[in-house]
Structures are given as C-alpha cells and as structure tokens.
C-alpha cells in the first residue's frame, strides 16, 4: 500500500467508509430481525415477481395449502385484497410456467393448485426462479434478510406512503392497443412454442396429481373484442384441446358477459373481485 503521509488520510477514508457502511447494514439487519421494518411489496412488476420467488423459497411462516399459478392476468385478479387462503404465485409479464418451476424447486405439495390457462403461455419461459435464487444466494438471503427484495428501502418506503397503489380504471388507448395486438393470427413459431410450453405444463400437472394435488384450470376473462379475436380464439382452442373441460376441472367465467378491463386484457378492480370470488368459491375457500 502507498503509505505516504498524503495517502494516510485516504486510507482512513476508505476504512471509515467501510466501517460506517457495515454499521448501517448491521443496524438495518437488527431493525428487520426485530420486526420494526415492515416487509415491502416491490415497486415494480419485476420486483414483485422476485419477492414472490424469495418468499416461497425462503418461507418465514407456514405456506398456505392452496396456490395459484399464472401470468399478470391472474396476478391482477388475486392482487385485489390480501388473502392468506390462496397463495398468489402468478408472475406479471411472464407465463405461469415460472410458478410451476418454483413449486418443483421447493418440493412442496399443495392441496389445491389453480393454474391460469391463457395466451400468456405463448411467451418464452423466463429464468426468473434460477436467476433470483441461485444456490449461493439462497444461503445469503436466508441468513441476511437485508438483501431480500422485500426489505429494499425503496419498497418499504413505497409501502409506507402507499404510492404503489395503481389506478386500474379503463384506459381507452391501452384497450385499443390490446385489441390491435391480437388482430393477427398466431405464427407457426408461436404455435410451436405454445405446444412446447403446454407439454411442460402437462408433465408438471401429472406429477402434482400423482402426489395428490387437485388441479383447477382457470380462464380469466378479457375484453370482448380481444376474446373474439382470431389470435385468442386459436390459442383457446389449443389450450382446451390439451386440457379438455370433460377431463379436467375448469373455472370458467360467464362468457356471455362484457367484462370491463383497464387495457383490454387486465380486469378492472371490481371485475377482478368478481372473478376472485368465483375462484375462491370453486376451491371451497369462501
């Protein structure tokens, strides 16, 4: 090390900074461990997804016996009010296969699993579970909650000021975009990917059923025009062909009704509550 007189003050600054940072981290750790700092909810969709992965793989309390897996369609439905009876492992922006991976990785066997079957299954599965929780990180996060996404100061702050509450009233431009994005039929590549994803899902469902889990498939309603589009219709046919209503338990909403959405594909708060009640009723949880 350069130990000249001029640099000794710099070395002191480095050591002092590291020491203060350590004190800050320790104080934060103590505040969290003592339960003084509340758990945050994640200020973005990506963070909310990671918090779900962390909460499920690092359980601080007993896990509910009923789990819901899906995309933002179902996440949006179950986010309305907190409910301890049904654990919402739906990931916004993803397909639902990530939730399956999460259950497999945790080795837990829930009593009932609700799986959303929707056009989101056309998406390429992401590596969120593996990336959010590699083995080394699992150890780090279980011993030091300060590194968990749920305890990020920004997330906690946002929970405290409740600024994260989103308005989900209909946005006509968004609805028009939602409709337009589904005008074209699905491509061959998308069809192939959907079939691959459904094959993975089928294997996962079979495994769970063998272990005594009851599976319920749920269809989350969307805007009428989106629902009737060629894109959605084709996908629906493939989904119902793979998991026929005659052989599987389905939770089907009232298809004759015009459901209100905020952007063509995500239900407004009131409509989401209706679907949530229906799901809980079907699971005998209401």
């Amino acid at each position: 090390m350069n130990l000249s007189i001029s640099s000794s003050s710099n070395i002191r600054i480095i050591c002092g900074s590291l020491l203060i940072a350590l004190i800050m981290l320790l104080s934060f750790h103590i505040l969290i461990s003592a339960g003084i700092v509340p758990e945050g909810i994640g200020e973005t969709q990506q963070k909310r997804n990671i918090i779900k992965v962390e909460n499920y793989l690092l359980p601080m309390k007993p896990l509910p016996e009923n789990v819901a897996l899906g995309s933002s369609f179902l996440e949006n439905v179950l986010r309305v009010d907190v409910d301890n009876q049904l654990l919402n492992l739906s990931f916004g922006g993803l397909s639902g296969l990530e939730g399956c991976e999460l259950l497999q990785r945790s080795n837990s066997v829930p009593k009932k699993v609700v799986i959303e079957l929707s056009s989101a299954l056309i998406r390429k599965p992401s590596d969120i579970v593996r990336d959010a929780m590699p083995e080394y990180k699992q150890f780090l996060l279980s011993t030091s909650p300060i590194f968990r996404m749920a305890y990020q100061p920004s997330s906690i702050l946002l929970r405290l000021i409740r600024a994260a509450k989103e308005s989900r009233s209909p946005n006509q431009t968004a609805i028009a975009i939602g409709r337009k994005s589904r005008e074209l039929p699905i491509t061959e590549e998308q069809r192939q990917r959907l079939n691959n994803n459904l094959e993975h899902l089928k294997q996962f469902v079979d495994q769970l059923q063998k272990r005594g889990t009851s599976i319920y498939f749920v269809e989350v309603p969307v805007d009428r025009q989106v629902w009737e589009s060629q894109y959605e219709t084709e996908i629906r046919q493939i989904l119902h062909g793979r998991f026929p209503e005659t052989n599987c338990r389905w939770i089907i909403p009232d298809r004759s009704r015009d459901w209100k959405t905020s952007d063509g594909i995500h239900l407004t708060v009131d409509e989401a509550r209706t679907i949530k009640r229906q799901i809980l009723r079907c699971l005998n949880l209401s």
Partner: protein
Amino acid sequence: MLFNSWEFLTFFLIVFTLYYLPSRTLRQFQPLLLVGASMVFYWAGVGTLTLLLLASIITNALIGFILVTGNADNSALRKQLIIGGVVFNLLVLCTFKYSSLILSSINTLAPAYAKLSPTLIQGVASIPLPLGISFFCFEGISLTIDTSKRLLERRLSWIDTLCKSSLFFSFFPHLISGPILRAGHFFPQIRTKCFREIDWYVAFKWLTLGYFLKSFVANNLADYTWFVKYPYFTTAGTITNVLLLCGYSAQIFADFAGYSFMAVGLAELLGYKIPNNFNAPYISRSLGEFWKRWHISLSSWLKDYLFIPLGGSRCSRTRACLNVFVVMILGGLWHGASWNYAIWGAMHGAGLIVEHIFRSTIPIPESVLLGVGKIVVVNAFVTAAWIGFIMSDVNHMKLLAKHLCTDFAIMPYAKTLPVLGYILPVAALHAWHWASERGLTIGNLLLKSDFFRMFVYATLIFLAAVNPGTPHEFIYFQF
C-alpha cells in the same frame, strides 16, 4: 460476465491474486496473465467469436510492427500499410455490424426487379455481433495511425509488439464498453506492476461510485423506463412520458458512466490509468461542452481521427458545419446499426451547428442565472434527443414527439413517481460537480470534510447493497 456479478467478482479476485504474487520472476509475466484473463473474460461472453478479436489483434499488431520498425523511409509502403490498417478495421466493423443494415437499406431502395434474395438478407442478418466490436475496431484504427505518426517507441521486438498490442486491445476492464484507449497513452504503461503502487483511494472511489450508479440508479430506473417504448407510451400522458424520458437520461448516464467508473477503478487495481469517460455531462452549458463531458474517449477519437482529417473548423463556415454534421451522424451510427442512431447523431449535429451560428452572431453575457438557464436548455435538448436513441422506428419517434406535445391533460401515473427518487443521485452528483467547479464555499467545505466523504461513500455502499434493481445488461454492451 457483468462487472456487478458474483462470477466477475470471483474471476477478478483470482486474477488479482495471481497478478500480485510475491515472486519477481512470475511478475514479469503480468501482461501475459492479463491477456490470458482478458481472453477468458471475452470468451465467457462471446465464445468462439474470440477468434475474431485474436485475428484483429494479430493483424493490427503486424501492421503496427512494420510501421514502427520496418522500412520507415519507404513512404509508399507506409501509406499502403496505413490505408490497409484502417480499411481492415472498417471492414471487420462493416461485416459484423453494418452489413445487415447496408443490405436491407439497399433492398428497400432498390426497384422491385433488383431486390436481393430474402435468403441472403436473412443470412447476413444472422451474422453475430461480437461484444465491444466498435471499441476494438476504433482502437485498431488509432493504433495504426498513432504508429504511423511515430507516437510509439521504435525498439520493440515482434513479440513485444504482439504482447503489448494484445493487452492494449483486450485489457478486460475496458474491452466491452470502453473507454476507447489510445496506444500512445497505454503502451508506455505496460510494465511490471507492484502492489504498493496501487492508489487505493482512486480505485475505491471509482468502484464505489460505479457500482452504485449501475446497481442502484441504472438498474432500478430500467424497470420503469421500458414504458417509454412503443406502444406503451401511447397509454400515458405528457407528464409521465417526460418524467420517463428524464429517467432514461439519468439511466443511460448511470449505466454507461457506472461501467466506465468501474473500468477506471479495476484498471487502477491492476496498475493502469485509463481515461475517464464522463465529467458530469448534464451540467454542460452548451452542446459543444456536453460532447467534451459525455463519452469523452469517443468524442475525442472522432475529433482526432475524423473531424480534423476532414478539415476540422479551419475552413469555411459552411464546410466546418458540414464536417460537424457528418462526424455526428457517423458518431451516431457508431452506436448501432440502425438509422435511428444516425437520426440521433444528426439531431446533435444540427444542434451543434445552430449553437455555433447562434454564438457567433449573438453574444450572450455570462451570469450564474443565465448559466443555469443554459444548462436547462441543453438538458432539455439532450433528453429530447434520446428519443432517437430509444426508438428504432421513425414513425414511433414522431408519435412520441406528437404525444409529448398534445396530451397534457393526463397526470403522471403514481407508479412512475419513484423515477424521481432514482434521478436524485444523478442530479446530486452533477450539483456537486457544479458547485466544486465554481469553487462554491459549501461544496468546498463538504469536500474537505473527511467525515462527510466517509458518510457519502458508506451510504452509496449501503444503497448499492440493499437496494439494487433487477439485473440488466449494460446498455453500451450492444455497441
């Protein structure tokens, strides 16, 4: 391997330990160790495309070697070698980066009977883009030209030239996202390094700031700013979109400056001084000043190897303006093989020309208030110009511009408000620079207080550790 990943930390610790082994004999091989480590680092990112980097190194080293030690008096040979070196690097760049753009543009303009076969277009489009190709090709050109100007020492053996060139090109702290090094600055630094020579404070300062900017600011902002892309921005109003554009402005600074600061810190730990790429660009009072503070290594490269050879500003005003415009368009295209980058460069070129004309015709008095006004104007321009950087489709650019000017009624989404919080550190960093550059008392007092500095660094470490955003690649990796 991202600088802010565990894999990189492990990799760097191994390299650092081997690099400073307490054996004089082994320390003689430090440059070779760095070359090997850099190849491993590059291989981890691009695999077999490392061969392209190797080919580029060998070719440039060979040209440089002949230029320095060969028949120096044969001016015809020298000229051929220089042209050959420049053409080789441009050819590599065009093949791997621009061939698809060139072919698809020709195809768009060509009449129906002369259209190229779709198989050819698809084939060219599938050519992979090696990481950091724009950086090492520009460095290759600078090596050729610098050696031709006799800026390098003449008594190098072929092996020495190859070894030094390899390290110059592949030195992993700067390999993927710069800064663009100059051979004349880097070659003299290649020698055995001692552990006691490390300036720990410099390394600590840049690494802390770099990691904080990338992990806390850029990665958190990236989770919001995707919303400013098509078609999402059409669902939001002016205030939300302006907020998100400001967020993008802060994000791209934090992302790229963060990488550059980490590169400076890592290089310092290995005993090398590499130039800083950023000097608080958002306190610039003119666009000209902005380009002296933003991506400094690129703008100085463009000035030395393009603007000046084109005639620079020592010619007629029209010609000088044209030179600026051409340089800025090419500088824009350097960022990516898409016309939107050319538009972004053209916007800056046009801005620089207007500024030049304006300043030479209307003298503006200097005052603090006017200075702040200029900063605001420059920032507004730079932020608006990022639209050209984000959108790859001209119609989407127009749509966003129209949307920004017409949809004033809608209030910002509550969920986008945290963007303000993440912009704050970037604003604070610039305010600190602004105060210290003007010798303001508060700035000086704070800078002199050791405890204040310790507290600031500790806070940066704390926030980077407990509040990082979701991982995102560095924006400049794609260039």
